[in-house]
């Protein structure tokens, strides 16, 4: 298990850039036709990436029925907030927003704890069969989560946890990916720090809590962003476990709504905006951490 490139604060994508002398050269020259062509292509791709999202926002602000006229309008005219009003007054989207937030926060907090503890143990403790156990855990990445769903549902039924937040949260509290991510990072923390703390008479939990965790702050943020987003976006499991609409998360509520209000394009778009906005904002503010998680998991995976 080398994972050299992953350990320590991983190479920032941008940081490596100035190493290329070519950059300076290109900047110095007048903008060539290749540069122009390249940027035309890049802008076109950007259009492809954002067009559906822009249309979603635009349609959500159109008066009812406007989006289903021909030719399809691109700009709301007149602009109206009525669908957002309806979502929050009549359709209980506020409740779904709260459910989603509570569930995602619970999962994030608990998975930070569980995964960091296990990752730390795999990285810094020596016990027989450690690496074999770790590899065994990694094999879990090859088991599609759907394989476990039917028995898990029956298990939750026995525990009376169907239709509860706990039923959604429990299966996501610890993840193979999270343990892997934490282990890779902790491996890069020098053993001397741990040993020094131990010499000072610190207990194991104290070392974990006061030495390891603070050093892990960046990767903890990364993991938190990752887990929060994936639990916010999760659909299949909440769809199965939550039966009472008072407990629906946003995606489940949205799927329900889309089955009922197919014709209300503008209303559906407003609901999609409400669902997407929190994750998009979170991503834009913390994208550095999120992207690092991908490259940590990916490059040397």
């Amino acid at each position, binding site marked *: 298990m080398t994972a050299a490139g992953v350990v320590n604060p991983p190479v920032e994508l941008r940081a490596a850039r100035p190493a290329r002398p070519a950059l300076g050269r290109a900047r110095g020259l007048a903008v060539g036709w290749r540069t122009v062509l390249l940027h035309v292509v890049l802008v076109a791709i950007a259009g492809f*990436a954002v067009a559906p999202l822009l249309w979603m926002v635009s349609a959500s602000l159109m008066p009812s029925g406007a989006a289903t006229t021909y030719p399809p309008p691109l700009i709301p005219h007149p602009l109206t907030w009525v669908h957002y009003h309806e979502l929050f007054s009549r359709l209980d989207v506020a409740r779904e927003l709260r459910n989603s937030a509570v569930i995602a926060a619970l999962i994030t907090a608990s998975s930070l704890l569980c995964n960091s503890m296990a990752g730390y143990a795999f990285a810094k403790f*020596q016990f027989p069969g450690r690496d074999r156990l770790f590899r065994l855990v990694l094999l879990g990445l090859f088991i*599609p*989560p759907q394989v476990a769903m039917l028995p898990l549902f029956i298990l939750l039924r026995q525990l009376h946890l169907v239709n509860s937040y706990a039923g959604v949260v429990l299966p996501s509290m610890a993840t193979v990916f999270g343990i892997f991510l934490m282990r890779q990072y902790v491996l890069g923390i020098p053993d001397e720090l741990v*040993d020094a703390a131990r010499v000072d008479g610190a207990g194991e939990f104290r070392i974990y809590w006061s030495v390891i965790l603070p050093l892990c702050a960046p990767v903890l943020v990364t993991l938190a962003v990752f887990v929060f987003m994936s639990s916010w976006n999760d659909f299949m499991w909440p769809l199965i476990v939550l039966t009472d609409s008072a407990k629906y998360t946003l995606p489940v509520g949205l799927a329900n709504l889309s089955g009922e209000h197919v014709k209300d394009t503008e209303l559906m778009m407003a609901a999609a905006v409400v669902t997407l906005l929190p994750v998009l904002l979170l991503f834009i503010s913390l994208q550095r951490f999120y992207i690092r998680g991908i490259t940590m998991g990916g490059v040397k995976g």
Partner: protein
Amino acid sequence: MTSLDGGGRAARRAAAIFLAPGLLLITITFLLPAAASFLLSLTDFDIYAVASPADARVVWLRNYATLAQAPLFWIALRNTLYFVLVGGPISVVVSLGVAVLLDSELVRWRGLFRTIYFAPVVTTLVAVAVVWKYLYDPRFGLLNAGLHALGLPPVDWLGSAVWAMPSIILMTVWKGFGYNMIIFMAGLQAVSPDLYDAARVDGAGAWQRFWHVTLPTLAPTFLFVSITTMIGFLQLFSEPYIMTQGGPLHATLSVVLYMFNQGFESWHIGQGAAVAFVLFGLTLIGALIQLRLRPERTEGGA
């Protein structure tokens, strides 16, 4: 190498305590159910047995035999393979292409482009599936309006058995290319500038440099990306659930959707578990094939 080189009892106990919450949770909520799923697939556990477990019988491989004879299962399998084998490569190639473009030294505002390309990745699948359903609307959708502007005839995107799966692939590529793009960009960082310079000195053109320098260096990244993409694509569920319900004419029925219908809609749990295990088998086979195809020159690490 290790901080607790003694490896004594205390260390073992501490390790056990630290591992316990995570590993217990994974075992209880994932590994044991997955194993139980295999056992269930050997029974005719169904809605009757949910009411009284004594009503289940061991039927050994009969569920698998039934699957082999179920036309709908084969349709689901075919659709899923279509999605994986056509959609997967398209998605990977688009990611690679965009990553190579963004890696060019001529690019300005790289961070901005990267953020924009990545935005669809973090979006909620259910929400964007709903959005795309309207984009695909045959009468009022933007896509057909675009075709019309180009003088092309309209397409009944999600309404025709021929176009439904390509439509889902298009949306999936849109939603996902940014993820692998990031991984490829990181992989491209590892390509040593010296190699490029050497190739340039040898008179290699841009295309040759890409083919002979970039791609071989990216091989491990490529392997990782293709395996994870395949695993993800095999699990196709939400898109058809939201957009087509598996239709029209079962053209978008996926293996996981079939499992969901068998398991949670009809409560043929034994049968559903068998489907789940076929999915697991497909995942393993796919991963093994790709590992076998791995080029020789990847480093041994990890």
